[in-house]
C-alpha cells in the first residue's frame, strides 16, 4: 500500500484512496484527424514503461476527485513528487528520492 501526496488536498494518504491512471504527459492531439496511423498508435498504446523515474497520473478517486501527476521510481515504488495536471514536467535532476 503506497503513500501518496495529493497536491490538491495537501495530505499524504494511503493508496486505497487513489486510482492509478497511466503514463502522464501524453497529450491528446488538438486535431486528431490530422494524425497518421503511427501517431495515433503512439498516442493510444506506446508507453515508456520506465524502469526508474516514471511520470504518471493518479486520481484521488475517494477524495477530492482530481487527476494529478506524479513522478515515481518504479523500482522502489517511492514517489519523488506529485503535482497538478497541466503543470510542466518537473526536472528529474531537482528531485531526490528521500525517505518519506
Amino acid at each position: 500500500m503506497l503513500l501518496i501526496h495529493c497536491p490538491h488536498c495537501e495530505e499524504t494518504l494511503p493508496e486505497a484512496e487513489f486510482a492509478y491512471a497511466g503514463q502522464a504527459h501524453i497529450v491528446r492531439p488538438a486535431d486528431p484527424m490530422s494524425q497518421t496511423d503511427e501517431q495515433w498508435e503512439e498516442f493510444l498504446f506506446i508507453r515508456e514503461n520506465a524502469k526508474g523515474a516514471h511520470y504518471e497520473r493518479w486520481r484521488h478517486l475517494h477524495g477530492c476527485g482530481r487527476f494529478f501527476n506524479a513522478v515515481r521510481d518504479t523500482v522502489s515504488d517511492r514517489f519523488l513528487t506529485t503535482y497538478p495536471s497541466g503543470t510542466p514536467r518537473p526536472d528529474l535532476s531537482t528531485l531526490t528520492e528521500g525517505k518519506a
Partner: protein
Amino acid sequence: MTRFNAFALLKNALNGHKGWTEQWPDSQPKKEYDVIIVGAGGHGLGAAYYLAKQHGITNVAVIDKGWLGGGNTGRNTTIIRSNYLYDESARLFDHAVDLWENLSQELNYNVMYSRRGVLMLAHNVHDVQSFTRHIHANRLNGVDNRWLTPQECKDYCPPLNISANARYPVMGGALQERAGTARHDAVAWGYARGAAERGVDIIQNCAVTAIRRNADGSVAGVETAKGFIKAKKVAVSAAGHTSTVMQTADVRLPLESYPLQALVSEPVKPIFPCVVMSNAVHAYISQSDKGELVIGSGTDQYTSYSQRGGLPLIEHTVAAITEVFPIFNRMRMLRKWGGIVDVTPDRSAIISKTPVQGLYVNCGWGTGGFKATPGAAHTFAWTVAKDEPHPINAPFTMERFRTGRLIDEAAAAAVAH
C-alpha cells in the same frame, strides 16, 4: 549427459548417486554467436532448444541477468489451458498444449504435465454468455471445452460452494479437460539441459545492458556486464524487462509492466483435484503435488519493477478464495511472492520480427505466459531461424496496434450492461 530413467535412478541409488552429471554447464560468453537470446526463462531456453533441435542452429547463447528460470517461469501458478476465444489465440495455445503433452519424453525430463482439467466458473449471465461463446468457438476450432451445470461443477471439484445464496453464485462452468498444470522449474531446467546438450551456451548472472546496432541499422550484438558479444541475430524474451532492453535498440513497444502476486497455503492431503478459475471474483486455484493450494492473485494497479506487491490485493484474493471455497477459511497462507508481468493493450502476446533487421521479440504475455511456453518457444525459434513468422504466430505482430487488428481476448470477456 546422463540419460534419465528408472534404471539410472536405481543404479545411482545403489552407488550413492555418484553417476549423475551436471544438467547444464555454467558457460562464459564467447565473442560471437549466430543467435543471442536475452532472457533465460522457459520461453528463452525453449527457443534455444528448438533452434538447436529443429533448425540446426547451435551457436546460440541464452543470457540472463540472474539465474535461469528465476523470473516468471519460477513464479507463476502453472495453469495450462487453450480454451481461448479467438482463432489466433486458440491455435497458439492449443499448439502449446500439444507440445506439453509430450514434453517430458521430448526433453527426457519429467515436467509433470498434469492433465487435471481447468474449470472456469460463471457467476453471472454475462459470464454464461461469454463462456458459451468460447465453448462454441473452441468446438469449431477443435479445442476441447464443455459446459458444466453447477452440480456438475461441484462433482468435478467437491470443495466448491454452489449455494444459490452466495454473493457470487456459481451459474455453471466451462471445463477443458485436456488443460492442467506442470512443474514450472522443471520446464526451465529441462529446456536448459536439452539446449546445453546441443551446444547452446547458458550464461547466467550477466545482464544485457544494451542492444548494439550496425551502421545500416541491423543488429550487431549485445552489450553485457561481461562485455560486448557479437551476434547475427538477437531474440529478446525478457518478460517484464522487455521494454527496457528493446528501448536500447530504439524499438518502442505497447507494453506496461505490472506487479503480479501469487501465494500458496500450507500443504495438506489431496482435497482439490483440478484447477479452478473465477474471473468474476479473481480466484485462481489448484493444489500442487506437494499438497499446497496454489493461488493466483491479480496485478496491482500501478506499473512497477519492485516485485513487492501490496497487502490489500492479497486480502482480496484470499477473500475471493474463501468465498468460492468456504472450507478453506482455516487453512493458512504459507508464502506469497511477486513477479513482473508485461501487458499489451489487447492482452495478447507479441511474437514478431521488429523494424530492426535481425532483432526479434517475444513479449506481452501478461499473466498467461507459462501455459504458452512450448508453443511460444517453438514458433519464436522458427521466426528467428527463418526470419519470418510461423503461421501460428503470424497474427501476433507489433503492427496490429497501428492497424487496429487486435486479438482482444480481454475486450471479448469485458463486462458492460
